[in-house]
């Protein structure tokens, strides 16, 4: 059925005409300018005082490779400790118990309020405060023996991370609809079981993107543990350039490895996100 008869005339039919491509002169200009700048910087580095052969030689040196392994081990363990503490502290923070709530607030305040490098130094030097540590009557040891660079770095990084992660976790738990708590209670669940079975799995979906961010931060924050002699990537690079004075070359080696690791982590995060998006999109299977 046509309604052409009822439409006013004087308006040409445009439906057959193609739309011409717009010329983006400004885009071409800025692109050219950026390429020019990058070329200049690249040339400067190529002609600068950098021995690129040292970069390629040390890129796969055993000490550097061991440094990356140590960096990743520390990042994973400290992040695991941080996530564990973060969940516990977030649950305490959201608890109706005012004592637990205050403890959670105090923890976040203390460890978020002081520099990470200072906390690492404090853990490493804790023997100055407590020469021996242990359980009275059962077991004790000299603190210098126990507080190795590894344990100091783990505690320093993990406990600090826990303070940040608790806020991420709390946001995730608050994002879950209150009706979910009620439905869990209605089938007889207590608070902790409801958190573990119903609330946290749903909170994970919201929490993974910021946690991925935090983990990437953690990989780089392990470099701070070089100040307490933990043999991670930066510390290994430093040890080499203390011997051969190729400071920039070794720093570039370390930088390339950090970049590579972070580049690998990004797609891993996307896989995790997909896992926890179960049930939340129409295409989820």
């Amino acid at each position, binding site marked *: 059925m046509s309604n052409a008869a009822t439409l006013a005339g004087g308006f040409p039919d445009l439906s057959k005409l193609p739309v011409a491509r717009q010329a983006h002169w400004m885009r071409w200009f800025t692109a050219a300018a950026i390429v020019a700048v990058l070329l200049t910087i690249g040339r400067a580095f190529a002609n600068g005082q950098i021995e690129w052969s040292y970069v390629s030689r040390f890129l796969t040196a055993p000490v550097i490779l061991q440094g990356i392994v140590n960096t990743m081990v520390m990042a994973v363990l400290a992040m695991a400790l941080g996530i564990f503490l973060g969940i516990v502290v977030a649950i305490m923070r959201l608890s109706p118990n005012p004592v637990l709530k205050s403890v959670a607030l105090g923890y976040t305040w203390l460890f978020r309020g002081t520099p990470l490098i200072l906390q690492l130094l404090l853990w490493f030097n804790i023997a100055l405060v407590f020469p021996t540590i242990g359980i009275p009557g059962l077991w004790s040891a000299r603190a210098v023996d126990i507080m190795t660079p590894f344990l100091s770095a783990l505690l320093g990084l993990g406990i600090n991370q826990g303070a940040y992660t608790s806020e991420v976790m709390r946001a995730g738990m608050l994002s879950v609809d209150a009706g979910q708590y009620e439905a869990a209670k209605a089938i*007889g669940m207590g608070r902790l079981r409801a958190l573990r079975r119903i609330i946290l799995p749903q909170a994970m979906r919201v929490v993974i993107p910021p946690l991925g961010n935090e983990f990437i931060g953690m990989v780089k924050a392990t470099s701070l543990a070089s100040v307490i002699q933990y043999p991670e990537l930066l510390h290994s690079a430093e040890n080499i350039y203390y011997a051969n004075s190729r400071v920039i070359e070794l720093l570039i080696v370390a930088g390339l490895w950090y970049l590579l690791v972070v580049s690998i982590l990004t797609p891993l995060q996307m896989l995790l996100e997909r896992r926890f998006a179960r049930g939340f999109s129409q295409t989820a299977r």
Partner: protein
Amino acid sequence: MTQPLVAIRSVSKTFGEFQALKQVSLDVSAGEVLCLIGASGSGKTTLLRCINQLTPVDSGGIWLDGELLGLREEGGRLHRLTERQIARQRLKTGMVFQRFNLFPHKTALENITEGPVQVQGRDRQEVRSEAMELLARVGLTAKADAYASQLSGGQQQRVAIARALAMKPMLMLFDEPTSALDPELVGEVLSVMKELARSGMTMLVVTHELGFAREVADRVVYMDHGAIVESGSSRDVLGAPREARTQAFLSAVI
């Protein structure tokens, strides 16, 4: 007279300045289907939530199957029960929510088996086959592996009813189970509820579906401003209300 399954005595509840329940008393006998009607804010949902202890009462008492809910009398004082004890008492009631509240990260089947397996610690295989029977009962066998996001509102609510039934409750509470549904989906949920009523389940239903109340309810209770105004058979309350307020409400909604 035999002991009522639910005995509500002088229950009051205040939210800030707002008095949601004023000295409400009510008996529900086993096998009875009771519909609570009234305008929003009349206290009917609060009363239902008090029975399931999602809302603690301020004063008065509710007994379910002879057991005082949420409180313990000792030395002339009332003590609140621990969360664990309250969780155990909740096992006797099943609750169906207005907004379904299915667990979105679990399939329909997993929603149903979650409580029996995790809370009651029953055998997974046995619970699973029971859950499949419940899904068949609500007509959703084909949707066992679907997530809530893949189900219509009516289907979600039917899964929610199956989830509550899986705990084998002695009392089912329905909080406006069809209010969040598109009109064409109301019927499928109501027919599941009718079948449940015929099977002899004790049901307390907060509803605006007067047709359902007329057809299924043994008793209809009209509430207004936190108090029970009128209570009787559906024929009497809906057909020939005695109270002026009930008459006004009914003429406004029909």
